[in-house]
């Protein structure tokens, strides 16, 4: 029971983090038709900027500064990079973001080196929130969930209650119409891209010290976010939310489960000789299959229901 | 009497709560030239999309040569002998005129997904393609990349790609849209030539083209056929005059 609850809470905070990332990606994709390969790179930059600025001004200012810097970087990417490539089509845009992800990782190597940096949870948040049976649940996880939910709520309110939000929503499906009504659609695009980047950066700020801050973090998280977006259905925020929680849950649970088919067989009294050819296969634990799980799920979803959980017919 | 080339039984189509086609009954005989006219938004293109398999019907039945083609994929319907053109030119822009037509010829010549035949050595393909390119009057421009042709040339190519597979039921969606008077006259002659012996169904706005080519006309208004008959009958039909002919001057 204890294990279940703790893992559930962990998967919730991880799932919310995934949603912060996949929501930005979905928004950018829905509006601009660009799948931003470099989205996870913005996540990484958020973590690194938070670490660097945190060294000088502490965690709390960094919490606000880092996403802003990443957002500015996102705006510059859109303005000088994507806009140049836009005329060559979606494939070129996708490849541009792919190259960008590559370059960002190398620049991070250049400046901060290849080893993980010591980006720590701030002392004020480094305590036990509550004790569940025998496990101490860290306050920082609770803080992560708080920030995630708060940010997403703010996003929801901006999109549905403000004027700029309505313009963005309209531009999602009818950018030409919105432009003929006098709105500066290129500027809206830049705003959305920057906003998505900032959101990813914020996820990096709160996730980087909870997990790890190293140059490989972009690729590690990036592919999971893609799985989430495909699983949930491209272009659907609700789908991304559901998929984030499901995939986050499955990843968190599977990593923690150390059972294999061999164990189950053993419980029923069947013993497989260690020399048998099947032994190797049956001895694979669930935690060992954990890395494959999300991708397997994605492939299954594609076979059974190609448009994802809540996707619209075709992108 | 042979089964009609195309028959629609109480066909309906809705997108969500919006119903576009509200019970269309149509019977087109083999060898007939049939025009579908109607005001904008009447559902003419949607009807074509339903017949050619681009969309599925919400209810009702579509029969091609007596056989139901409901729910079939576009390529299957095409293989059964029905081909359509598009209102907005829909060709292969990076291929030459010749290559465009050749793509449309390949399946009907039986080569399917072959990767062991050298395409230039296929005499049947070459002859048929040259024949079609000649028929649409593009022999001199056959190596031009389709994306840089003039508008009228692209429309001619569109027709060429449509007929190249030898389909006996041809659907042409506003073939003369956007053309000048002389271009239209040329297009009409081309259409008359290439649909000789086959069944033609076309959507048109240009009344002179309609009355010039069509054996029979159906008038589609708000997703329903309000009249169907010979050009004479349609010209004299009061309901049609009110709904359509009377309010538009060409």
């Amino acid at each position, binding site marked *: 029971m204890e294990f279940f609850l703790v893992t559930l809470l962990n998967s919730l905070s991880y799932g919310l983090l995934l949603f912060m990332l996949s929501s930005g990606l979905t928004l950018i994709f829905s509006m601009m038709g660009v799948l931003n390969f470099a989205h996870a790179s913005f996540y990484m930059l958020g973590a690194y900027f938070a670490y660097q600025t945190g060294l000088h001004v502490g965690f709390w200012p960094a919490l606000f500064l880092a996403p802003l810097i990443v957002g500015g970087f996102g705006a510059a990417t859109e303005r000088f990079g994507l806009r140049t490539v836009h005329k*060559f089509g979606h494939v070129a845009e*996708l490849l541009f973001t792919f*190259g960008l992800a590559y*370059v960002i990782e190398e620049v991070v190597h250049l400046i901060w080196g290849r080893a993980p940096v010591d980006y720590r949870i701030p002392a004020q948040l480094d305590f036990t929130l509550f004790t569940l049976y025998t496990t101490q649940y860290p306050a920082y996880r609770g803080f992560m969930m708080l920030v995630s939910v708060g940010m997403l709520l703010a996003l929801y309110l901006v999109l549905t209650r403000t004027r700029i939000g309505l313009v963005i929503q309209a531009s999602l499906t009818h950018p030409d119409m919105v432009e003929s009504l006098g709105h500066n659609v290129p500027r809206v695009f830049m705003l959305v891209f920057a906003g998505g980047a900032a959101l990813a950066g914020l996820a990096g700020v709160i996730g980087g010290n909870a997990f790890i801050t190293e140059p490989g973090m972009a690729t590690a998280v990036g592919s999971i976010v893609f799985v989430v977006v495909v699983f949930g259905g491209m272009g659907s925020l609700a789908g991304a939310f559901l998929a984030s929680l499901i995939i986050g849950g499955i990843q968190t649970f599977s990593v923690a489960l150390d059972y294999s088919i061999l164990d189950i067989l053993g419980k029923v009294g069947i013993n497989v000789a260690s020399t048998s050819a099947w032994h190797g296969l049956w001895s694979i634990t669930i935690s060992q299959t954990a890395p494959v799980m999300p991708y397997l799920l994605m492939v299954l979803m*594609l076979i059974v229901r190609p448009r994802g959980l809540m996707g619209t017919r075709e992108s | 009497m042979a089964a009609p080339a195309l028959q629609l039984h109480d066909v309906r189509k809705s997108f969500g709560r919006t119903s576009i086609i509200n019970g269309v009954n149509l019977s087109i005989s083999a060898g007939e030239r049939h025009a579908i006219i109607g005001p904008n938004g009447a559902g003419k293109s949607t009807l074509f999309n339903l017949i050619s398999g681009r969309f599925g019907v919400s209810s009702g039945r579509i029969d091609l040569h007596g056989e139901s083609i409901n729910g079939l994929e576009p*390529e299957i319907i095409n293989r059964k002998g029905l081909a359509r053109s598009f209102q907005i030119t829909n060709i*292969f822009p*990076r291929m030459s005129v010749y290559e465009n037509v050749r793509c449309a010829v390949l399946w009907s010549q039986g080569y399917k997904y072959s990767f062991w035949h*050298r395409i230039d050595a296929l005499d049947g393909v070459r002859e048929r393609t040259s024949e079609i390119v000649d028929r649409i009057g593009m022999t001199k421009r056959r190596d031009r990349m389709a994306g840089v042709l003039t508008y009228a040339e692209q429309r001619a190519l569109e027709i060429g790609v449509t007929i190249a597979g030898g389909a006996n039921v041809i659907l042409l969606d506003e073939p003369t849209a956007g053309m000048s008077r002389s271009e239209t006259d040329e297009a009409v002659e081309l259409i008359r030539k290439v649909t000789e012996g086959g069944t033609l169904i076309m959507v048109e706005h240009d009344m002179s083209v309609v009355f010039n080519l069509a054996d029979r006309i159906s008038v589609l208004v708000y997703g329903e056929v309000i009249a169907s008959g010979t050009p004479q009958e349609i010209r004299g039909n009061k309901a049609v005059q009110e709904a359509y002919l009377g309010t538009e001057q060409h």
Partner: protein
Amino acid sequence: MLTETDIRHLGRSASTSSVLTPRRIVFWVAVALIFAGLPLIFTQSFALSMLSQMGIAIIFALSYNMLLGQTGLLSFGHAVYFGLGAFFCAHALNLIGAEKLWFPVTLVPLIGGVAGLVFGLLFGFVTTRRAGTPFAMISLGIAEMVAASALMFTAFFGGEGGIATNRAVGKAFLGVSYGPQIQVYYLIAGWCLVAMIAMFALTWTPLGRMANAVRDNPERARFVGYNTTRVRWLMMSLASFFAGIGGGLAAINYEIVTAETLGLVASGNVVLMAFIGGIGQFWGPIIGAVLVTLLQSALSNYTQAWLLYFGLFFLVIIMFSPGGIANLITLHKPVWNARLVQRLVPSYVIAAIAGAVMLAGFFALIEMIYHYEAKETSSKAFSYFGLILDPMQARYWIGTAIVLLVGMALVYGVRRVVGRAWENLTVELQQKGAV
């Protein structure tokens, strides 16, 4: 509709006929002779290794372009088929060595090809149901799945260490044991020639042509009777076949296959190769494969920043010439045919100088940053094209910045010069009727 400029950016389709003219036969014979003669010119052992690597890369990149350039499928997981081919061949070689299997080593790459084909059919069935961006993501997902599985199924994939093998197994055929690198080179060169001819021939088949049609307008392809998913699936399987052959050759060449062989870095690499070379021409990826292999081998000896330069180079190509190097070459074809290349030479020379200045400043800056960050305790000064630069002294930073800024200004100015030269040239070409 497309304008002429758009089409130039995207790259033209192939020429209009596949007829085997005497000229074409001479061309392929010449290629074969060049392949055969290269080791006589480049005799050092590292050159031979690099040539072997290039041969493998050419097969891999060309197979990738069957997907991207021909069928319009952007895959981020093509190395899966390359790698699986490699693993199957490594196991085959080991079986041959243990005398449990009789199969000539010369034909072992075919085993890789079949492995690639089978998995291409299997995975392709799932992935080719979608195209465009969804396909790209799905291919990435499959690549991740296979890469993660590679660490799970250690019996077949050998875990972290991979599978080692020995290529000098089986009976020596006519004295050829594939022990020495020169023999391996000729094996690779032979397979490369065969694969090139086969893939080229494929572009001239009904499937090859319809793949182009599906790339350009999948909807229209359906309305002329073709199931687009089936076309994509078949192209995917064939491309995987050739990728598997490349993988088999890699197994023979390196005598070791690890999870990295089918990993995401390898998949990303082939995307870079194809794109830098140019996906609009059949021979584009060949240029990309050769160039990238060269850069990867050579550059890594001189600087730590080579991956960064690599990525930046890729970005520059995407932003300013997405048709790749091949497109840049074909742009000059009418100029070459009209024998007016000399019109461009002066402006190009100026551009080259400006570019060199800018790049000198830029590379110096990056190198300084790398050396500044280095953990060495002794002097951080380093040699840069003969000059000594010391990142610990401010004046070097200032000097580098000046050179870079001057270079950037020069390049900015030179753009207009080159543009004008092209304008005048275009007018002249049009007058001659060449354009």
